[in-house]
């Protein structure tokens, strides 16, 4: 979504400039009359307005407006009935920053963010390299790896929670395999639960990374591999000095999507651990904290304040990432446009 809108911005920025240079270069041409130039301009604006208007309206009404309203409600102690009246200023925010449950949730988000990158990144690159080879059953393996990503979160969560229950399939299998000592409370032991969550997340989302990386690999010119082969580079050297650097932009975009996903993680945790047990099991996230203390408690003012905090944390991380990591990718794109 964000990618495509960036592209729109780029094209709309470059195209008027291109028209202007074309006009400047041919001042002597008698066929270009000012009146003709203005009319298409006016019609173009109408067209832009007409075509983008509904989208802009929807964006303002269903994204920007709710964000503004959440910020407004966050200043009130409000039960969700009628208009908010009990203005409490920044009290809600003070409570959030002092609440140890929120600190824990934030820590869990940080852990999930880092571990998602660490677990999924190398695994996905390895799988993508493997699946880029010519081998039997390649399409089948590709489909199998991508299937978990397509299955809805609710089904994934329900399935895994049934398997990982104390009396579930995983422990049952361990006992049948003669390893009763290995059985663990996968979901309710606080030492284990977050790792169970990481397994589920990795299983679910690694396919998405693999597909992205495979697409990135297709865009690397084969001439480079041929040249390196002629120069006598080994397979590993080729991957290290050609594939990985040229896959960089794709990896950076994937990492960005993964980070945003980790910060806003809600559905899997909510399905597997239910409405209340997540914080006990040590898998609560900022989003589950928001739902438990906002919606479930009926404290809608407080919940909105949590939403605002979540929004700013995500925004800050996204901006920092764009500024320091993604900048070289976008810069490259811009110079290309100027040529």
């Amino acid at each position: 979504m964000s990618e495509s809108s960036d592209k729109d911005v780029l094209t709309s920025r470059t195209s008027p400039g291109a028209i202007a240079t074309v006009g400047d270069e041919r001042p002597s041409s008698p066929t270009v009359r000012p009146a003709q130039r203005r009319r298409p301009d006016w019609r173009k604006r109408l067209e832009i307005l007409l075509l983008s208007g509904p989208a802009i309206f929807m964006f303002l009404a269903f994204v920007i407006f709710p964000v503004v309203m959440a910020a407004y409600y966050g200043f009130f102690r409000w039960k969700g009935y009628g208009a908010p009246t009990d203005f409490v200023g920044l009290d809600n925010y003070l409570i959030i920053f002092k609440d140890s449950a929120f600190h824990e949730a934030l820590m869990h988000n940080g852990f999930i963010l880092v571990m998602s990158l660490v677990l999924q990144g190398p695994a996905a690159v390895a799988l993508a390299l493997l699946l880029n080879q010519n081998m039997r059953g390649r399409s089948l393996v590709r489909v199998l790896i991508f299937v978990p990503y397509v299955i809805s979160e609710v089904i994934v969560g329900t399935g895994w929670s049934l398997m990982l229950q104390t009396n579930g399939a995983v422990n049952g299998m361990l006992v049948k395999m003669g390893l009763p000592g290995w059985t663990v409370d996968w979901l309710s032991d606080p030492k284990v639960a977050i790792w169970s969550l990481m397994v589920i997340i990795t299983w679910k989302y690694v396919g998405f990374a693999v597909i992205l990386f495979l697409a990135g690999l297709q865009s690397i010119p084969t001439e480079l591999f041929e040249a390196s082969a002629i120069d006598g580079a080994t397979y590993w050297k080729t991957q290290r000095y050609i594939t990985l650097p040229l896959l960089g932009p794709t990896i950076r975009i994937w990492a960005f999507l993964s980070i945003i996903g980790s910060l806003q993680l809600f559905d899997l945790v909510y399905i597997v651990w239910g409405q209340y047990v997540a914080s006990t099991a040590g898998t609560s996230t900022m989003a589950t904290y928001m739902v438990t203390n906002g919606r479930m408690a009926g404290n809608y003012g407080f919940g909105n304040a949590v939403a605002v905090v979540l929004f700013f944390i995500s925004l800050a991380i996204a901006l920092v990432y764009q500024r320091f990591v993604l900048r070289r990718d976008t810069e490259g794109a811009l110079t290309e446009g100027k040529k």
Partner: protein
Amino acid sequence: MKLRKILAISAAMAVGAGALGACGGDDSGSGSDDSSMTFWHNSTTGEGKAYWESTVADFEAANPGVTISIQAIQNEDMDGKLQTALNSGDAPDIFMARGGGKLADVVEAGQVKDISDAIDDTTRAALGDAALNAFSVDGKIYGMPTAILPGGVYYSQDLFDQAGITAAPTTMDELDTAVSALKTAGISPVALGGKDAWPAAHWYYFFALRECSQQTIEDAAKSKSFDDPCWLAAGEDLQAFADTEPFNDGFLTTTAQQGAGSSAGLIANHLAGMELMGAWNPGVIASLTPDEKPLADLAWFPFPAVDGGDGDPGAMMGGVDGFSCSVDAPDACTDFLNFFMQKEYQEGYANAFHTLPASKDAQGVVSEPALQSILTAYNEAPYVTVWMDTLFGQNVGNALNSGVVDLLAGKGDPAGIVQAVADAAAKG
């Protein structure tokens, strides 16, 4: 040419948008019309759904010109949808309510009708004060109770016999003995749906009911503060009980009502001895037995007495289901409430929902043994309080849910429960 096309398209879009708007308008108009009402209840399947359909049909036949359109809404979606509808000014005329702090919030926002003077005398007499009190806020009545759902311990008589337990426990000591007897017999003593949290919180509520006097509970409902030492004592009782490890393996990830692995499912399939629940439980268990028939050996005993507690050992706690009218609902709304409280409709309600009707006139129809013992205990109880999460409101109830789950998981302590209530009060 192109411009004309664009204009034509935009005109068409404008007309389309207008039409959409008009559709929306039609829907919202129904609230103010005197002859037609909307009705939200939570029985989306089976006998309960059929009961409301036939009752509404009878009411419409008896009151020509009045129409009621029914919307059955999944129970878990009800609160959220109702809140949105009330805020949007497009509230259903008749909607399900459960009294207590939640109803008080709606009353405070001025969105529900005061029906104190509209209840007819027969209904009032048949209900008695206890049921009506559940829907009273500051002495005015805002809802019509249809069912009473007191809580207590459901158990399997066969499993108790197998473990050699001869009489239902009446004190905590006897309960502890029963727990160890069941364990010795290789049976999970107590099923608990900890994933849903509220079944775990019920254990704390009942210890508090035994530890705290009626006055203390009522005061706490107003002050939202758990300063009285009895609240801490209740947590200590629960901790002591939990230390005997009475609950089924993996109770923290067990749900209450969904499927054979849920706590109700464990009872239904003779995999656990007992479960602390409300009076809806026989119906839930019946739907989870292998043949989907009521469990033949299901029996019930009241929550045991606690040594040295200030609460009466006979006191009961339970929910009251009922219906309220929105503040803008026509007078026909209260007519409907009175209509379905007549004896024959309350008897039909009890049969359809396998539960206890609020009207005492209709309670003769109750035949299931577990429900009969509840009814006896209920009618002998010196006082009845509503579920404490209902009593204290959503915010405190929610905090108690988390606090009790933490305690049972070994992550918190009795003082943590009291602290959780104080923390929650700061947020709302």
